[in-house]
């Protein structure tokens, strides 16, 4: 376990980082960004794999399987959806030259 205070530091700094990263975002990018952040929490896949990897009983394996399948869905779906949205911005970005 990451030590108590260290954990608190990590948590707090990460929270500020998230706040800062999004606070400068123009409204037009809110949906893609929401989708992008939705993709980023797909990192839950890593945890799901660890959980399934350490599961021993059948029930644990079932939960673990669900976790991995869901998490993979989150990551993969989140990526493609975000990418499809941002693809469009590329073309209009070249044309319109951002305001």
């Amino acid at each position, binding site marked *: 376990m990451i030590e108590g205070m260290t954990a608190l530091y990590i948590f707090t700094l990460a929270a500020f980082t998230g706040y800062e990263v999004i606070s400068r975002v123009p409204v037009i990018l809110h949906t893609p960004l929401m989708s992008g952040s939705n993709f980023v929490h797909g990192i839950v896949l890593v945890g799901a794999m660890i959980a399934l990897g350490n599961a021993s009983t059948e029930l644990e394996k079932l939960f673990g399987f669900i976790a991995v399948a869901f998490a993979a869905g*989150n990551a993969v779906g989140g990526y493609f959806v975000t990418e499809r949205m941002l693809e469009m911005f590329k073309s209009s970005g070249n044309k319109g030259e951002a305001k």
Partner: protein
Amino acid sequence: MSQDTLQQALQDHKDSLSALEQVINDSAIEVAAEPSMWQSFLSGGIEISYFVATILFILGLKRMSSPVTARGGIVWAGIGMILATVVTFGHEGMGNYFLMILAIIAGSGFAWWKARQVAMTDMPQMIALYNGLGGGAAAAISGVELLRGAEHSMIAQILAVIGALIGSIAFSGSAVAYAKLDGLMKKSIHFPRQNTINFIVFTVSIALGAIIIFQGSEVSLTLIVLFFIFALAFGILMAIPIGGADMPVVISLFNALTGLAVGFEGFVLDNAAMIIAGTVVGSAGTLLTQLMAKAMNRPISNVLFSGFGNHSDEAEDAGDIEGSMKPIESSDVAVMMAYAQQVIIIPGYGMAVAQAQHKISELTKALTERGVRVKFAIHPVAGRMPGHMNVLLAEAGVPYDMIFDLDEINEEFAQTDVALVIGANDVVNPVARTNPESPIYGMPILNADAAKNTIVIKRGKGTGFSGVENHLFYADNTRMLYGDGQAMAAELVQQVKEM
């Protein structure tokens, strides 16, 4: 004397025995040392990879905050994700690889198939769906960890329970949000004492969670299952009374919640990448939720605890609407626009439903060629999420220096000859300014009624998402162009070009 010799011999024997033992021990250590060094090298590599992945996530999100670098941003984050996933296979002492790969293929296959076929207009519910999966995954991880029991400290146990609670709520809530936006569930559901019942269900799930924490390793399966049932039920109860118009805020909230749940599971599993990525999303999502709620002038508590649809019984006073809806032909509209100095187009979700954005884009080009100044006014909640309309217009090729936010453009309506409202309703309803009784009262709106002429393209006479009658449609300077958005836009394009 002989006894001394004997003792001496015995001592020698013992010495040589212990020396032998020493040798055996040493070699044993050496045997053990080899894999442990490899193992520590490996786990060091895994840790570094997680670190790199985390940095890529944050930089990716950062890049996504500017239109120019946005596309690179998601690719960076994607590389981080692949890196983190691949190295996880190398974790010490794991099994079930077959199941793991099977689950990854099943989950990503489904998501990939869904993501490919979905239309741009349906993006919000897709985000809801994938977000729900993430929340479900976080909850399921908790399930595994709680079932395994014992191995966690008190704090980890608490975080596992909280993560499970939040993850479950995000999962079932997002599922409801998906169903509503996808049209699978049409109505907002209300029943008496709703808030009280929700509160009770929530309290029960917290109580069950607390019992699980205190039982530690001896926790019973029934209790865990019960806990999940209540948590999932709360997610559903929380989402069913919320109307479609408020859904973006709720999805954003669930997105933040999932992030938080993932962060908590990261603590449980001692995984810094999950902690940081989850928490970053948690706070970014919270901010985004606030921004959205602010744009709609509805405090989050309001969105969550008072159903939007409630007002229908409160007798919408149709009597106080003055005037009538006045129809107009497309040819007249074309003339009006072609000879205008400035036209402001106000697109709403209806435009996207009618797939009219491409025709509107053409219309914009035709008008611009005639020297008409064309601007787009985007309400913060136009479409179904902030920025959704911008995505749709971008898809149709409207350059975004023509697109303006509410604050930037609202003053300009007074100097505008024609305001063309297509598929928007609530966001131009002056009732939001005038009638404190109205459920949308206080929401900032686009002042389309201030323009010299207002044209509303509309399929029929129905009300908007909120179900509120729109007084703009009855105003003296408003004309209704009845018809399908795409067909009408096409007619306008043709007539403007012919002029």
